[in-house]
C-alpha cells in the first residue's frame, strides 16, 4: 500500500447523496480476477451512455474539473461490499474522498487501499460545494498527521477523525495482514480453548 501523508489538490464535486457502490462500479464490470484496471469503468453508467459515448453533462467528463480529491454527498459508498469500488476510485486517480458520511464497509475498504476517506461536517461539505461552484480551481489540503482538512482559498479548516491504528498504517504504508500475521502464535493459543458448537 502507498503511504499517505499530505495531499493538496483541486477537487471534483459530486453532490449526490447516498452514492452506492453499484454506481461507483456496476456489477457487470466485476468480472476481472485482478485488482487492476477498474478505473475505466468508474461511474460507468453516469459517465457513458448505452452506446459507450461520454455523457457530457456528467462532471467527470467536464475537463474544467480535475484533481485527486472527490467531494461527494453524504452516505458515500453504501450498498455492496465490493472492494472494486475502492480500487476503481484509486485506479482512476483519486487519493481521498471527502463526504459528511461514509458507509462502513466502503470506509474500511478505502483505508485498506490507501484511499483516505475524510469525514467532514455537513456545513463544511456545503461550503466546499458552494466555493467550487464559484471557482473550479478550489483547492483542498489534507494533512493526515494533524488530521486536518483546509480550503486553500478561504483558510476554512476542520479536524477529522481517523482510527489511530489506521492512521499509522496509512502514514507508513502498512496493511492489516502484516500485523495479524505477527500475532499468529497468539491466534493459535486462542484456538486451544475456543470451542465452536
Amino acid at each position, binding site marked *: 500500500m502507498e503511504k499517505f501523508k499530505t495531499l493538496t489538490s483541486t477537487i471534483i464535486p459530486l453532490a449526490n447523496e447516498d452514492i452506492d457502490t453499484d454506481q461507483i462500479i456496476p*456489477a457487470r464490470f466485476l468480472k476481472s480476477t*485482478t485488482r487492476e484496471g477498474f478505473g475505466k469503468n468508474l461511474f460507468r453508467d453516469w459517465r457513458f451512455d*448505452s452506446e459507450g459515448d461520454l455523457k457530457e453533462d456528467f462532471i467527470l467528463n467536464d475537463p474544467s474539473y480535475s484533481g485527486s480529491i472527490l467531494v461527494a454527498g453524504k452516505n458515500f459508498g453504501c450498498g455492496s*461490499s465490493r472492494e472494486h469500488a475502492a480500487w476503481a476510485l484509486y485506479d482512476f486517480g483519486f487519493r481521498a474522498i471527502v463526504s459528511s458520511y461514509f458507509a462502513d464497509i466502503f470506509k*474500511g475498504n478505502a483505508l*485498506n487501499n490507501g484511499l483516505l476517506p475524510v469525514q467532514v461536517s455537513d456545513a463544511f461539505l456545503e461550503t466546499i460545494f458552494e466555493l467550487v461552484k464559484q471557482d473550479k480551481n478550489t483547492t483542498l489540503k489534507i494533512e493526515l498527521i494533524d488530521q486536518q482538512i483546509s480550503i486553500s482559498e478561504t483558510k476554512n479548516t476542520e479536524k477529522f477523525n481517523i482510527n489511530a*491504528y489506521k492512521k499509522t498504517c496509512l502514514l507508513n504504508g502498512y496493511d*492489516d495482514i502484516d500485523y495479524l500475521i505477527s*500475532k499468529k502464535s497468539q491466534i493459535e493459543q486462542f484456538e486451544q480453548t475456543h470451542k465452536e*458448537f
Partner: protein
Amino acid sequence: MGKTLFEKVWDSHIVDSVESEQEILYIDRHFIHEVTSPQAFEGIRRRGIGLFRKNKIVATADHNVPTKDQHLPIKDVLSKLQVDTLIQNCKDFGIDLYGLGHPYQGIVHVIGPELGITKPGMTIVCGDSHTSTHGAFGAIAFGIGTSQVEQVMATQCLLLERPKTMRITINGELDRGVSSKDIILYIISKLSTAGGTGYFVEYAGFAITSLSMEARMTICNMSIEMGARGGMIAPDAITFEYIKGRDFAPDGAALEEAVKYWKTLYSDEDACFDKEYTFEAESIPPMITYGTNPGMGIGIDETIPKNDSDSFKKSLKYMNLEAGTYLLNKKIDHVFIGSCTNSRIEDLRIVAEYVKGKQKADHVKAMIVPGSKQVEKQAREEGIHQVLADAGFELREPGCSACLGMNEDKIPDGEYCVSTSNRNFEGRQGPGARTMLVSPLTAAIIAIEGKIVDTRNFVNKIATA
C-alpha cells in the same frame, strides 16, 4: 450489567484487544465465491503464505453463473474465467467447493443455513454485504472487502473496531398479506439507508420471534440496507428445530451440548443497547419501493412523498415517477423472484400457493430463480415447479441472477421490475432498469394482475413469512 446477544458472541471471539480500539476477532466460518475471492488468493500467493485454516472455508459459485443450461460450459468468457479461477484456487489450496453441478451449489447465504453450516454463536464472514443473513441464527455475520478476505485466509482473524449495538423491537402481530420482507422494508424506510451505520442490530419482539427461520433470514439479510454491519436474532426452539438433521449439523450428544450453549445466547434483561427503536406490527403495511435506494419505500396504497432535495428528484426522474402520485394500478413489465433475500423454499411455496391455477398477465415476464440446488430439488418434489410453470413463470437454475445483473439476466432499459431482491439502486438489475422491491407474496400477486395492487385485497389469511 448484563450483556447483549451481540456482546456475548463477540466477546467469546476476541483473541486480543490491541491499541487504538481495534480488536482481533476470530472467525469461525468463511464463505467465499468467485467474484470477491480471486484477488485475495492472488495476495496469498504473492506473500508466499498458505491458508491458515482451510477447513473453515466453504466455497460456492453464485454471483456470476448463468441460470440457464448450467450443465453446459459458461458462454461468457470473463464469467467462465472467474468461475474457473475459483475452481483452480479451491483445488490448489484444498478448499471444499460446491460449484456448478454440485448438489449443494447455490447462493452462498442460502446454502450456509440449509446445509447446517451456519449455527448460533458463530462468527461468519464472506466477501458479500448480505452475509448479515446468517445473523438470523444468532451468529455474528457480516460482509467484508477482498483485503479482509485475504486477512481471514491468512490468519482466520480480522482487525476490527467494535460496532455499537442497536435493538429494534417489533411488537404485536402482522396484518394479513404482510410478511417479513415488509417488516424490513418498513424499518429501512423509517431509519433510512444510513440509519444503522456503525451499529450491529438485534431484532426482537413477538412479530420477530413468531417468524420461521426463512423469514428471519430475510430480515437479517437486509440489515446492510440501513447501513448496519449486521443483524441478529436470538436463537430459540424454532432455530434449533431448523438446524436439527441438516447435513453438517451436529447430532446426538454433540447437538445436545450445542443446544445447551445456544440457549445462553440472548440479550440479558439488564443489557444496555446504544440505541433502541420500537415499532408496532399492526402499523406495517405491505411495502413497495418507489426510488433508487431501499430506504425509499412506502405502504403499497400510499402516495410517493414530496421532497425538494436534488438527490430525491434525480431518483424519481430515473424511475419516471412523480411525487404525490399513487403506485397502485401502475403497469409492470417484469417480476423477479429470487436473490439471497427471498429465494428459499418457503418463498417459493408462498408464490406457488397464490398462483396455483392462475395465469400470469400476458405482458409480464415472470422469472423465478431458486436460491440453491437443494431448493430447486425440494420445489420439484413438492410439485411447486409444475405449479409455477403452469402459471407462466420461467424457472431458472440457482444463482444471484437479476438481483445484481452480473450475468445475462438483466432487466431492459426503462422497464419496471417488481423484485423480491434487496437493492433498487440505479442500474442494479441492468442499465436503466427500474426496480421496485416487494415481498414474494406481493410479487406473485402483481405477476398475475400485471399491475401494482394492494396485497391485502387478494389474500384472506395471514402470510407467515
